[in-house]
């Protein structure tokens, strides 16, 4: 043990963190990071991983606990301090200024100066391209962030940390938004970093990634660090059971689909985004009652746009949508809702809920007109009754329906969203990343609901980046790449994850005829 201790670079002891809203995010956290390792941190959503990392990066201050760096106790009261001590962090969400170039983003905060006052552009380019080269990142530092891919953004984030001399690198769910290929590329870079003496803390919800790249893994549950293990001494099954504290049902049983009436038909949908990129390029398909069609694809290939157009959040440029064989005239969310389309949006915080309003207000936001007395006044007693029922039905953990949504955890917020969407009179469900960032229990609940409603005759369009989910839920599957549907699979059973990956990256493309089978 003494031998081990000498190599411990970062140690957290008895960390307690309470957020102002009373959420105890870290109860008793102990973590030891050994020099030169890639250390995984895993845990259900809301387990407190990001919170812990923010504390180690000086962004949040713990109520209690000590942090040691190379054996020395340190107070990390600002990111600046952490950076100076050689800690770098890549956040769960990008922290880049879109309108600036990669180089500007990299040097931001430690800009080279000319004549003591002016920004030295030449030096800036030199610094950033040098660091990119040193770590084998092939990027053009003069490009603006708004024009580059997610992978490059992720690399920029890492370079930002490295250029500040980070020896310890915290990566909070860096692969969540990457394609398998980009992930592979990233892992290559991480191994390279490790070789050059860097220590990495790696957070991910993907067990296979942890198995592949990490040396040790610390499991968190409900704000407590449960255990730290050598990766080679453990198994995915062990990790996941420790993580949730029970055995996970990894497979949901479902009956074969009973294809019903044609519900929705999309013809030649096109959409060009603000930057002039054609996000949807003549997309056509049909959606039948009683089926779940999933849309797989790497983020940014048009799936979000498709979901938003089918729910009326965005207006298409070309093409048309028919619902029950009737052409849509008005393309607003209101019109789609009136036709029985419900939508679970990807972004539950900024689109899917009004966080400072109550759970009840959130649930009835789309049903205001159905809960009225004398056509004008809110029928609060009826609302309260139904709210109670749905809160129970969707197992939302709260103390009253009047509690504000921002007091809930992410998973519970998603349940509120589902409770709103999946209780109306609906025929078509557009579910976009319905379980992203949601703990296993909630995910399971939502997935079961989707199947339940499919069986009750609803048509479901599932847009998901989680291949597990795609395999588990879909009756049919399409892949989107570069704004087009480039593959269609009648039956997901005969499909492998690897194969799907190829289509997702556009390495393989089906012929037009094959894709058009979806028309049948």
């Amino acid at each position: 043990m003494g031998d081990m201790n000498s190599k411990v670079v970062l140690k957290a002891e008895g960390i307690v963190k309470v957020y102002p809203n009373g959420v105890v995010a870290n109860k008793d956290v102990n973590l030891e990071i050994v020099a030169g390792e890639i250390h995984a941190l895993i845990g259900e959503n809301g387990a407190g991983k990001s919170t812990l990392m923010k504390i180690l990066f000086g962004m949040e201050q713990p109520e209690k606990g000590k942090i040691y760096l190379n054996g020395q106790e340190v107070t990390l009261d600002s990111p600046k301090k952490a950076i100076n001590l050689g800690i770098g962090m890549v956040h769960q969400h990008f922290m880049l200024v879109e309108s600036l170039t990669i180089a500007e983003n990299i040097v931001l905060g430690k800009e080279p100066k000319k004549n003591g006052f002016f920004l030295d552009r030449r030096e800036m380019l030199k610094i950033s391209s040098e660091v990119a080269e040193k770590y084998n990142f092939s990027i053009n530092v003069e490009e603006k962030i708004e024009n580059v891919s997610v992978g490059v953004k992720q690399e920029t984030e890492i370079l930002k940390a490295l250029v500040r001399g980070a020896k310890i690198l915290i990566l909070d769910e860096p692969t969540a938004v990457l394609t398998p290929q980009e992930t592979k590329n990233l892992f290559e870079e991480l191994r390279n970093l490790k070789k050059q003496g860097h220590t990495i803390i790696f957070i991910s919800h993907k067990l296979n990634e942890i198995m592949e790249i990490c040396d040790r893994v610390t499991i968190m549950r409900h704000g407590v660090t449960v255990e730290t293990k050598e990766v080679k001494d453990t198994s995915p099954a062990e990790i996941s059971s420790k993580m949730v504290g029970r055995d996970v049902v990894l497979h949901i049983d479902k009956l074969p689909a009973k294809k019903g009436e044609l519900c929705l038909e999309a013809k030649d949908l096109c959409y060009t985004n603000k930057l002039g990129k054609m996000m949807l390029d003549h997309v056509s398909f049909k959606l039948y009652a009683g089926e779940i069609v999933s849309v797989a694809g790497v983020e940014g290939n048009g799936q979000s746009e498709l979901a938003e157009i089918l729910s009326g959040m965005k207006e298409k440029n070309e093409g048309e949508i028919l619902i029950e064989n009737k052409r849509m005239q008005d393309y607003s969310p209101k019109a789609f809702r009136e036709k029985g389309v419900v939508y679970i949006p990807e972004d539950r915080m900024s689109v899917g809920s009004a966080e400072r309003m109550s759970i009840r207000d959130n649930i009835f936001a789309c049903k205001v007109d159905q809960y009225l007395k004398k056509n004008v006044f809110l029928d609060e007693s009826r609302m309260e009754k139904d709210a109670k029922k749905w809160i129970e039905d969707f197992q939302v953990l709260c103390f009253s329906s009047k509690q504000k949504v921002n007091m809930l955890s992410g998973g519970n917020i998603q349940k509120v969203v589902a409770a709103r969407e999946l209780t109306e009179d609906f025929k078509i469900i557009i579910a976009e990343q319905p379980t992203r960032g949601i703990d296993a229990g909630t995910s399971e609940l939502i997935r079961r609901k989707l199947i339940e409603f499919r069986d009750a005759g609803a048509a479901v369009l599932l847009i998901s980046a989680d291949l597990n989910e795609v395999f588990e839920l879909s009756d049919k599957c399409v892949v989107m790449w570069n704004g087009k549907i480039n593959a269609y699979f009648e039956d997901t059973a005969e499909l492998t994850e690897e194969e799907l990956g190829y289509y997702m990256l556009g390495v393989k493309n089906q012929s037009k005829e094959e894709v058009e089978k979806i028309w049948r």
Partner: protein
Amino acid sequence: MKTLVKVIFTSSFFYSLIRVATPLVLASLGAVITSNAGITNIGIEGIMLISALAGVFASAFLGGPWVGLLVAILVGVICSLLIGYVSMSLKADSVLTCIAFNTMAVGGTVYFMYAVVKDKGTTLALDSGKLPSIPIPIIEEIPVLGKILSNHNILSYVSFFMVFVVYILLYKTPLGLRIRSAGKDPKALSSVGVSLLKTRYIALAISGVLGGIAGAFMSMGYVTWFSKNMTAGRGFIALAADAMGNSTPIGATMASLLFAVAEALSYGLQVTTFPPELVQMLPYMATIVGLILYSIKRNADKAK
């Protein structure tokens, strides 16, 4: 109509233009800095007002207009930082903070004016002096141009020099990079260990300097005393100019000039037979139309 032409196409019209534009340009540059840093500083109106009074007091009691200017700037900065402290450190809504601050400025200046000169109207009882007007050697000799450009109050020259300074500051210095980042993506800035708060405080302080100079111009350049609520909404116009100019120094200056043209016209137009109330409305109307046209254009650009 002939009178109208006679009023507009004179060198004195353009000369007035510069004078009318001076406080607007200064204040709108202040607004540009803060809005680049992600703060809507409606408080610039109150900052100008308080600085104007502070300048007069300092000039009268401490040693002349130059000291007055210095104190006006200092007070501008202090007010700015105060707004920053409340809206950022104490986390009050910045729009509300500024509105409260402006209300306070109107009453507070009267309070202090009364405490010092026992007058609630003006500080005419004080001998507070004026910042000098400056002839510009060579330009002065040029026939028409000389009349337009020379012999302005020193702060008019300062205001146009400031356009240049603010431009350099925003686009050519590390601080500018940080200020712009603070507005575009505050999280990105914090993530690299730059204090967002500090950056915004600096931006506010700079806008305080500009607001302070604008205030000093009102009470020690335009006229030589302070009178109750003498800024008369110029700070709000500066905000409009910032919005119309897309928060760029050049754009905001252009917008300020547009307003100044309308205002100078409104003085000139009264000489003709237009109803005075409608003519007085002209500058505000022009700003509204300008703002709307700008929004329409921006919308159209976005749609493309």
